[in-house]
C-alpha cells in the first residue's frame, strides 16, 4: 500500500518526463512539478486563512487565481512544455506575491520578506537568478517608493486590504513560518532531486560499466574467434605444405629435372602436387580442391595420402589410378559432409613415356626449339570426389618429351593471378614466360617464372594458392 502511494507520488512528480529524457531533464521536470504542487497547497491554505482574517475580495481572488495558475503550470509541464512551465511558475509567483504585498499593507507587509524566495526559486527552476533577484528587489523598491513618496496611494492600499491589527499579527506569524518553510522546501527539492539524479547517474554508470564489460567480453570472444580463424588458416597452410615433396626427394629422380613451388594464399586454396618415384615409375600429381580453408587443406591431405598409397601399390594405369582415387575421396568427403571435390591430373612416367589422365588446368609443353604445345585436359576426366557415377574409362593421353623439352604444370592461382588493373596473368603470359626461360634448368625456370608472375601481380594480394611444377627432360 505504502509502495503504491509512493509510486503514485513519484508518477505525479515525474509527469511530463518522456522515455529517453536524460537524467538532468527528468530532475528539472520533477523540481518544477514539486514546486507547483507545493504552491498549490500553500496558495490554497492561505486562501482559506484569508477567508478568516480579511474581507478583501481582491486578496482572495489573487490567492485563488494563483492556485489555479500553479495547477495550470503543472498541466503545461505534463504536456512537455518544461521551459514555459518553469517561467510561468516563476512569474506567477512574483506577481502573486507582489499582489499579496500590495494588498497587505505594502511596504509594511510581512509578505515583503518573501522576495528572498525569488532567487531560490529561480535556482530551483534553473532560470536566471540575477534577473529574478532584481525583480524581487524592484518589487520591494516600488513598495518603498509608494510608502515614502506616495502616502495617498499607500493609504488607499491599506484601506482596500482591510486588515485589522489581529490579522496583521496572523500575517506576521504566517510570514515568519511560511518563508523559512518555503525556503527549506525549495532548497530541499533542489538537493533531493540532485541526489536522485546522482543516484540515477551512478546506476547508469554501473549499467555502462556492465555494458562495457560485456563489450570487452564480446571483443575478447571476437579476438578469440579471429585467432581461431588465424590458427585454422595457419594449420591449413601447414598441412598443405608439410606433405609437399622435398627438394632432396625430387633430386633423386635422375631421369628428370624437376622443380616445384607452392605459395599459399591468405586463405588456403587447397592446391596439391606431388612427385613420387617407386620402382622406376615416377608419378606426378597436381590438383586443386574446390573452396578454401581448413577443409580444402584436409582434402588435399587425403588426396596426397591416396595418391601415395596407390603409387606404393604400383598402380601404373592413370585411368585405374583416378577411378580408385575418386572412390576413396568421394567416400571421405561424404563423411566430412563438405560439398567439395577436386581437379586432379595424374601423370605416370614409365620408360620415357608420360601417361596423362584426369581433369585439371592445361599441361603446357615447351619443346627444345621453343615451340609451345598446350594440352587441354578438360576431356580427360571429371572432378575427383564429386560423384561415384563416373565413366569406366578416363581418357589417357600419351606423350614423349625429348631431351631439354619442358613440361609445365600449374594451378589456376597462376593464370588467374591479377595485376593492379585486375588483369589476369593468363595462359598467354604463362606460355611467353616458359618460352623465355625454357633453356634454363628446371629450378631456374621456376625462379624466373615466379619472378615474372610476382612482378606482374605487383602490390596485389595473393587470392588463391599458386602451384608450379616444372619438369625438364634430361
Amino acid at each position, binding site marked *: 500500500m505504502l509502495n503504491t502511494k509512493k509510486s503514485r507520488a513519484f508518477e505525479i512528480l515525474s509527469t511530463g518526463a518522456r522515455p529517453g529524457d536524460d537524467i538532468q531533464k527528468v530532475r528539472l521536470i520533477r523540481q518544477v512539478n514539486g514546486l507547483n504542487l507545493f504552491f498549490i497547497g500553500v496558495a490554497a491554505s492561505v486562501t482559506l486563512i484569508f477567508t478568516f482574517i480579511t474581507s478583501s475580495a481582491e486578496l482572495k481572488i489573487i490567492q485563488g487565481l494563483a492556485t489555479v495558475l500553479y495547477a495550470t503550470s503543472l498541466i503545461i509541464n505534463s504536456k512537455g512544455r518544461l521551459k514555459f512551465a518553469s517561467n510561468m511558475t516563476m512569474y506567477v509567483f512574483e506577481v502573486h506575491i507582489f499582489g499579496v504585498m500590495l494588498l497587505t499593507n505594502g511596504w509594511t507587509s510581512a509578505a515583503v520578506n518573501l522576495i528572498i524566495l525569488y532567487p531560490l526559486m529561480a535556482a530551483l527552476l534553473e532560470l536566471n537568478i540575477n534577473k529574478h533577484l532584481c525583480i524581487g528587489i524592484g518589487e520591494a523598491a516600488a513598495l518603498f517608493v509608494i510608502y515614502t513618496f506616495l502616502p495617498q496611494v499607500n493609504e488607499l492600499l491599506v484601506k482596500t486590504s482591510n486588515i485589522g491589527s489581529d490579522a496583521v499579527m496572523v500575517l506576521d506569524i504566517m510570514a515568519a513560518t511560511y518563508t523559512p518553510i518555503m525556503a527549506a522546501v525549495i532548497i530541499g527539492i533542489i538537493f533531493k532531486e540532485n541526489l536522485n539524479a546522482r543516484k540515477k547517474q551512478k546506476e547508469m554508470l554501473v549499467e555502462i560499466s556492465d555494458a562495457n564489460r560485456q563489450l570487452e567480453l564480446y571483443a575478447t570472444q571476437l579476438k578469440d574467434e579471429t585467432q581461431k580463424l588465424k590458427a585454422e588458416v595457419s594449420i591449413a597452410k601447414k598441412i598443405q605444405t608439410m606433405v609437399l615433396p622435398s627438394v*632432396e626427394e625430387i633430386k633423386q629422380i635422375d631421369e628428370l629435372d624437376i622443380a616445384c613451388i607452392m605459395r599459399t594464399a591468405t586463405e588456403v586454396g587447397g592446391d596439391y602436387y606431388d612427385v613420387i618415384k617407386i620402382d622406376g615409375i615416377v608419378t606426378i600429381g597436381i590438383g586443386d580442391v574446390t573452396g578454401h580453408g581448413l577443409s580444402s587443406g584436409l582434402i588435399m591431405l587425403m588426396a596426397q595420402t591416396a595418391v601415395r598409397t596407390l603409387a606404393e601399390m604400383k598402380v601404373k594405369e592413370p585411368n585405374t589410378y583416378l577411378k580408385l582415387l575418386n572412390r576413396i575421396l568421394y567416400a571421405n568427403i561424404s563423411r566430412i559432409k563438405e560439398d567439395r571435390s577436386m581437379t586432379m591430373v595424374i601423370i605416370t612416367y614409365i620408360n620415357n613415356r608420360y601417361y596423362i589422365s584426369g581433369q585439371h588446368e592445361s599441361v603446357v609443353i615447351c619443346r627444345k626449339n621453343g615451340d609451345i604445345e598446350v594440352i587441354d585436359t578438360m576431356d580427360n576426366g571429371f572432378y575427383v570426389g564429386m560423384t561415384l557415377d563416373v565413366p569406366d574409362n578416363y581418357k589417357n593421353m600419351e606423350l614423349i618429351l625429348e631431351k631439354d623439352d619442358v613440361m609445365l604444370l600449374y594451378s589456376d592461382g597462376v593464370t588467374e593471378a591479377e595485376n593492379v588493373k585486375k588483369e589476369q596473368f593468363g595462359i598467354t603470359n604463362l606460355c611467353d614466360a616458359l618460352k623465355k626461360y625454357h633453356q634454363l634448368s628446371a629450378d631456374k625456370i621456376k625462379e624466373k617464372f*615466379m619472378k615474372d608472375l610476382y612482378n606482374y601481380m605487383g602490390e596485389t594480394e595473393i587470392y588463391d594458392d599458386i602451384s608450379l611444377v616444372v619438369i625438364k627432360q634430361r
Partner: protein
Amino acid sequence: MFRLKGVFMEHVSKEHLDEMVTTLSESWKGSLITAGLNAGIFSSMNYNTPVSIDFLAEKLNYDRNKLDKWFYYCAGVGLVNQIDGGYILSPKCHVFMPDSPYKDIVGFTRLNDYFMRSAVEAQHNFKKGSSLDKLTEGKITRNYQPSVSDNLSAELMEYFKQYNMGGDDTLLDVGCGIGAFARTILKNMPGLKITGLDPNLFAIEWGRKENREKGLGERLKMVVGDAVDDIGEFADKSFDWVIAVNLFHFFPVEHRLKLMKNMVRIASKGVFFTETILEKSKLALSADPLMSLLWNDYTGFFREHDAENLNNQLAQAYPDAKIVKHLILQNSTYLMAITK
C-alpha cells in the same frame, strides 16, 4: 695412464684454463643479458626510480626467487644498481637499451638471442641446406630485420642526408628483404620513391602486405629479382640512388664486383653500400660463423684483402666518381659512398 694424463696436463696451462673460464663467464653474462631483455626485465626498469623484486615478480608474473638470483648477479657485474626501494638500471645498460645512442650495439645485443638459438640447434644448422631460419620456417628473417638490422641501419640515415638524398629522388634498394629499411628511409624522407629488389618470394609477399597495410603502395614498390642477373634489366641511370645495406655478406663473393658496377651503372646521383670487414673487429670475426648457422644464403663478411681489391677495382673502373669510406658499426663496417 699416468703418463698420458701427465702429457695431457702439460698442455692445459693455468693461462688456458683462465681464458676458458673468462670466456664461459662472459658468454653466460651475455646469456643473462639476453634473458633480461627477452623476459622484459630491463624494459620494466629505469635509471631513476627503483623497482623492487616483489613489484616485478607481481607485474611480470615471475618467480621471485629467480628474479632475486638474476638481480644479485646483475648488481654484482654492475648492470643494475641497488638503492633504497629496489634496483635501477646502471648507466652501463644505456649502451644496449632501445634508447641507446649506439644503435649498432642495440642490434648486436639482440643478435645474441638468435646466435644462442642457432647454437642450441647447431646439430641441424651445421648441415648443408639447413639453418635456423629454415628450421623456424623463416621466423628468423621475419624478426631479424626489425630487431637487429633496423638498428644497424639507423645510423645510415644521417649519411644519406649528408649526401643530399631527399626531395622526390628515386631509390633502388637492392636486397631489400621485407622492406623494413626502405620503410625507415621513407619515414625520414617521405618524398622519395623507392623500389625494393629481393629474390625471396616470402620476403616480398611479407613486405608488400606491410606496405598495403601502411598505405605505402605508391611510394614503395617491391619487385622480385636476383641481384646477380636480374639487376641487368634495370636501365642505366634509371634511379637517382642505388643502395645495398647489409647485403654483400648474403651475396656470392664472385659476383660482388659485378653487382657494385651494376649499382653504379643504374644510379645517376650515387651509390651506397656497406662492407663488413672480418678482421676489423672481434665481433665480426665471431659473428661470421654464427651468421652462417642462421642463414643458408649467408656468404660471409669481406676478408680485408678481398675488400681492398674490390674497392681498388671499383675506383679504377670509375675514375671520375668520388668514393668515400665511412667507418660505421663498431669499427667493423664501412659505408661506401660513391657519388657521380
